[in-house]
């Protein structure tokens, strides 16, 4: 055990900190694509120039071109969090499409899309889930029929975050109708202004507040060149699995910050004139959550060490998404309970605390327990890949 970062990294930390002191934007930029696009592009471009975004992406594709270094990544994340500024852009293009293109894309695809995506000039959505293909994603039915040099797409996607704000979609479609389930899928890049695409916003349980950018997307004879395939035709499933891995990595943020916010709430919120923190019942509940949070915090450090040493951590490396999403939900739930009858207020009602943050956080966390691989799918993965338990036998065909 050695929990010191060492002088080189402390120097890097000081450098990031002074950058943020000098250039920190005064209003939110880049969280969920709020605000003017040109401001976002300027801010992301500056971060890339300084190496705080697209740090390890090669220069020829629009990145900063530094060698990968996990500790630098941790330090940048810590310092940006401390400054309350998002690092880069939390969106599906940079976090999911770009790593996939770097791994599987052609030279031309990389040169054309990686830089503009990282700079926020091109915004992407992900066309994976369908009404009939959720956990069983490979059963997707949206078809892409070959027609000359093009594919013609028909079908429907659902849960497509930011489809209404996106320029492009990376989409899974069935190009080989006669192939087996997993072998008939291709991964396509599709401009959202192509004729025949209809985007319908969905209303979710978060109601009028919070992240409400889920959509259904309908395709009627949508024409896209065959050259827009990433990898080879019929290899889309393998390529999508790279992308899903990137998503699971990005969904397991440690809830320590949220726990601190709950502790502050419990000191300030009073019932019968007494702060919630003075209640042994609430306090015990809080301490229990703190124990779980500390376990996940240090687990993150242990998994980081495994990555640094390229060691396979086994089942230990598969549990963070499952645990952190549930823990976030439980922290929000205690906050709501502490506020009691005022905890259910919403929609900026009179007496609502923290502009509805805790109800929003509970609902959003529930969404993350389901999204990006449900908790039950995670448990299958942990059981089968982590513990070596046998897969469920396939049912006999009737």
């Amino acid at each position, binding site marked *: 055990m050695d929990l010191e970062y060492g002088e080189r990294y402390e120097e890097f930390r000081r450098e990031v900190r002074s950058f943020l002191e000098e250039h920190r934007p005064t209003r939110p930029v880049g969280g969920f694509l709020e605000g003017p696009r040109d401001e976002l592009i300027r801010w992301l471009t500056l971060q890339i120039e300084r190496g705080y975004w697209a740090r390890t992406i090669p220069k020829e594709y629009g990145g900063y071109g530094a060698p990968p270094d996990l500790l630098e990544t941790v330090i940048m994340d810590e310092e940006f969090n401390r400054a309350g500024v998002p690092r880069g852009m939390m969106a599906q293009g940079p976090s999911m499409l770009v790593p996939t293109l770097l791994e599987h894309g052609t030279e031309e695809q990389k040169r054309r899309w990686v830089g503009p995506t990282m700079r926020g000039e091109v915004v992407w959505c992900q066309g994976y889930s369908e009404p009939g293909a959720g956990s069983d994603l490979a059963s997707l039915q949206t078809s892409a029929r070959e027609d000359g040099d093009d594919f013609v797409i028909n079908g429907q996607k659902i849960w497509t975050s930011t489809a209404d704000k996106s320029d492009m979609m990376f989409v899974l479609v069935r190009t080989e109708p006669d192939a087996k389930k997993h072998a008939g899928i291709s991964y396509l890049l599709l401009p959202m202004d192509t004729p025949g695409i209809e985007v319908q916003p969905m209303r979710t349980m978060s109601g009028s507040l919070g992240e409400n950018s889920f959509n259904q997307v309908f395709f009627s004879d949508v024409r896209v060149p065959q050259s827009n395939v990433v990898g080879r035709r019929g290899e889309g499933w393998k390529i999508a699995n790279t992308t899903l891995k990137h998503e699971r990595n990005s969904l397991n943020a440690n809830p320590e910050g949220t726990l601190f916010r709950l502790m502050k709430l419990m000191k300030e919120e009073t019932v019968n004139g007494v702060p919630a923190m003075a209640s042994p019942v609430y306090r015990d509940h809080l301490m229990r959550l703190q124990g779980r949070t500390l*376990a996940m915090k240090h687990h993150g450090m*242990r998994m980081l060490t495994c990555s640094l040493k390229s060691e396979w951590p086994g089942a230990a490396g598969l549990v963070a998404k499952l645990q952190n999403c549930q823990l976030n939900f439980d922290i929000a739930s205690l906050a709501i309970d502490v506020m009691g009858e005022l905890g259910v207020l919403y929609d900026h009602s009179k007496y609502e605390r923290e502009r509805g943050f805790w109800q929003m956080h509970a609902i959003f966390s529930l969404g993350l327990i389901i999204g990006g691989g449900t908790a039950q799918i995670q448990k299958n993965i942990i059981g089968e890949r982590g513990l070596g338990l046998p897969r469920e036998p396939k049912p006999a065909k009737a």
Partner: protein
Amino acid sequence: MDFGLSEDQRLLEDTIRSFLADRVPITRVRELRDAPCPNDRSIWRELAELGATGILIPEEHGGSGLALLDAALVAQSLGHAVTPTPFLGSAVMAPVALAALDDAKTPAWSAGIAAGELVFGVAVTETFSVREGAGVELRGGALHGKAMMAIDACDADLVLLAVGGDGLAVVRGDAAGLTQTRLATIDATRCTSELVLDGVEPEAVFDGAGDALDRMLIAGRIALAADSFGACESMIEQAVAYAQQRKQFDRLIGSFQAVKHMCAEMIADLEPARSLLWYAAHSFDALPDEAPLMACHALAHISEIGREIASVATQVHGGIGWTDEQNLHFWFKRIGVARHLLGGPELLRNRAAEIQGLAAA
């Protein structure tokens, strides 16, 4: 930065585990459960030869002068094998206290522990929980009162006990006026007893020993968490192995999601707890300001996941898991007693809140 075990630590763990597999298999544990005290001296002496009894004792007193993380790995291995041995009292709590106390006799006692010649019991329950009106006080140079749930004291040569508010004393196990009664618990692999003192002459008395008491309790809680963690780890291994070979409805039961998800939930709780345990043990030596809080959280958290794992791992086995013959109950009961030996989860969490200034101490 390196959050993990060193090569030496992995080697230490391997050494202890193969020793236990060879010398103290479950058949031996079954024999020891019927002894008047399960702490077997021959196992203790062999552990001394491996350097385990003196793991925290400085080299100048015959020990190996290692860190609490190393001791925690030994404790974890002992819990994993449900080994009856006075490691917690004699090799962790007593040495930590003795190192913080200044007396002409303490170096010789430490050397005796390291050599495997001395067994030290520890009776400090009343510093965090008083029941049955227990408590020990010094009157006219002699000790009077009673101490409950003393650890590893039955067969001990010497016992370290809490006296009054923040004092400590050492008494001989066979001192005149000392009556020991074994307090049998569900766990036949751990020694717990009551000490009644009626004018016992102490070997040494330490006033104002609050720091030594605090440090020994922190170390004890982390080592006990490690013991319980090791028992949890073994129960999951046994449950997964069973799910991989037991068939019902013409299928391995591990292929049923109902069973698979039980196993996944157990390991999903266990692995982050391992990270917390390592950090808590590391903090004892490297980050002493954090150690009191981390000890409370590590033991409370592992006690909570431990109760669940002990129950679920037994359920994975079905009816056979509930029999004496399957032996699984040794681990279940080890986890159950560890939950309360140095403070239960509610007590520990209240202490955690006090340490952070969130509750009135």
